[in-house]
């Protein structure tokens, strides 16, 4: 047999080695495949968490930027129509979710008691309720967001522009706001409705820093408790505060894009739904439109 034949013999008979392997071979293989599947899941999960947190960071930044753009657009339109539009009818319910107020309309306000009541009440803060999740991913994401927020919204904010007296025109009266700085982290504001030298109405606002965040706190008879709104967006002439638990206002916006005017805008989540009493409150110093309440104040020298 020459060399070519030997080669041919082996080549032609390759199948003699064919043999179905022992069943245990498949079992071993299956165990390894199971382990591989488990490990792949963990890697994928971790990668997803990192990717998701990065996306969220990018998303948060771009959403904030986009939101501010959208808000500006909306408010720009509002700004143009404000001077000429009439008061539109607002959808009102008889909902008794909010406690009815003992609302004192007439008479001169005793300066003493509201202040005292204010000090006690202003300790209420809106608290974030982050769902406790056993997954690490949520922690990673919230930590990342928190850090991003911290970098985007440094705690020190300048609200000195707010200080002093502001005036707004109401039908046969004046809306007045006075802001003073109580401490480095606290600004107090008081709003009056004045008609014919009578102070008919008063509300109190506060800007307060707590930890890394600034809060806008609303105190009035229309709501049983003071309500705190957490700053969610800041730029020197456009500031947004939010409280997702409140239907109206869901957001409070300081819009200062026009010089000398500070426009405070109150936005609902969905349609504005107010009890009669609340409606009374909001129309005192604000213009109530279909989808927002606005008050424009000019710095009074």
């Amino acid at each position, binding site marked *: *047999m*020459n*060399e070519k034949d*030997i*080669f041919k*013999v*082996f*080549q032609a*008979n*390759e*199948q*003699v*080695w*064919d*043999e*179905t*392997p*022992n069943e*245990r*071979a*498949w079992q*071993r*293989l*299956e165990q*390894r*495949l199971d382990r*591989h*599947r488990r490990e792949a899941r963990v890697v994928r999960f971790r990668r997803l968490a990192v990717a998701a947190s990065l996306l969220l960071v990018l998303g948060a930044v771009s959403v904030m930027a986009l939101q501010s753009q959208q808000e500006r657009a909306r408010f720009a339109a509002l700004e143009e129509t404000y001077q000429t539009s009439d008061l539109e009818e607002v959808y009102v319910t008889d909902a008794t979710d909010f406690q009815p107020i003992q609302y004192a309309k007439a008479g001169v306000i005793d300066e003493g008691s509201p202040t005292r009541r204010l000090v006690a009440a202003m300790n209420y803060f809106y608290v974030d309720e982050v769902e406790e999740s056993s997954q690490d991913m949520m922690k990673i994401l919230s930590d990342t967001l928190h850090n991003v927020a911290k970098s985007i919204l440094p705690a020190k904010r300048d609200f000195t522009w707010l200080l002093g007296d502001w005036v707004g025109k109401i039908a046969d009266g004046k809306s007045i706001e006075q802001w003073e700085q109580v401490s480095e982290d606290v600004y107090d504001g008081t709003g009056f409705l004045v008609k014919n030298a009578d102070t008919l109405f008063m509300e109190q606002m506060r800007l307060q820093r707590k930890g890394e965040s600034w809060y806008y706190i609303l105190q009035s008879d229309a709501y049983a408790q003071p309500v705190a709104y957490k700053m969610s967006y800041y730029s020197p002439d456009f500031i947004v505060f939010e409280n997702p638990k409140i239907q109206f206002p869901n957001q409070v916006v300081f819009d200062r894009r026009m010089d000398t005017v500070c426009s405070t805008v109150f936005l609902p989540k969905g349609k504005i739904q107010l009890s009669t009493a609340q409606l009374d409150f909001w129309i005192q110093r604000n213009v109530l439109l279909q989808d927002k309440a606005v008050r424009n104040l000019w710095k009074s020298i």
Partner: protein
Amino acid sequence: MTEHQIIAACRRGDRKAQKWIYERYSPKMFGVCKRYVRKQEDAEDVLVNAMFKVLTKIDSYGGKGSFEGWIRRIVVNEALMLLRKRKDFQYAASLDEVQIADTVDVVEELKAQDIIKLLEKLPVGYRTVFNLYVIEGFKHREIAEQLGISINTSKSQLILAKKRLQKLITEQNLMG
């Protein structure tokens, strides 16, 4: 379902598809393993390792060329890795020392078991090069690269393998 569809399912980690591919190719691939590593347990190890790689890295099979050929390459590599680990390789002398033997007439028909036994009797160096050249169809240059030897060594190993086989067949005939 076509094999193409089953491969697609395998990419998704479908266990049924994986088992189907294993069952279809493992007898032949087990044969490949046995040719290289001889011991049954070793052959099984190589098979399991190789099929694991096949099933988990199936994404790297682009669809070009035969699927069986792709599997076979993985199996052969796995076999070679085991042999390398065992440090079984001992290569005989270079080409110069090879002496031309007389050709011998042998019985034309060799039984299947004989063929298997013959290959098993070859030392690992001869056997590996013989497998790669004769059955897998690699060129000497490729074999040299794969095994980390010179082309001359690969050629001499093949010639020596042939001579040894011839001798074994002759002995068998004389005895049988």
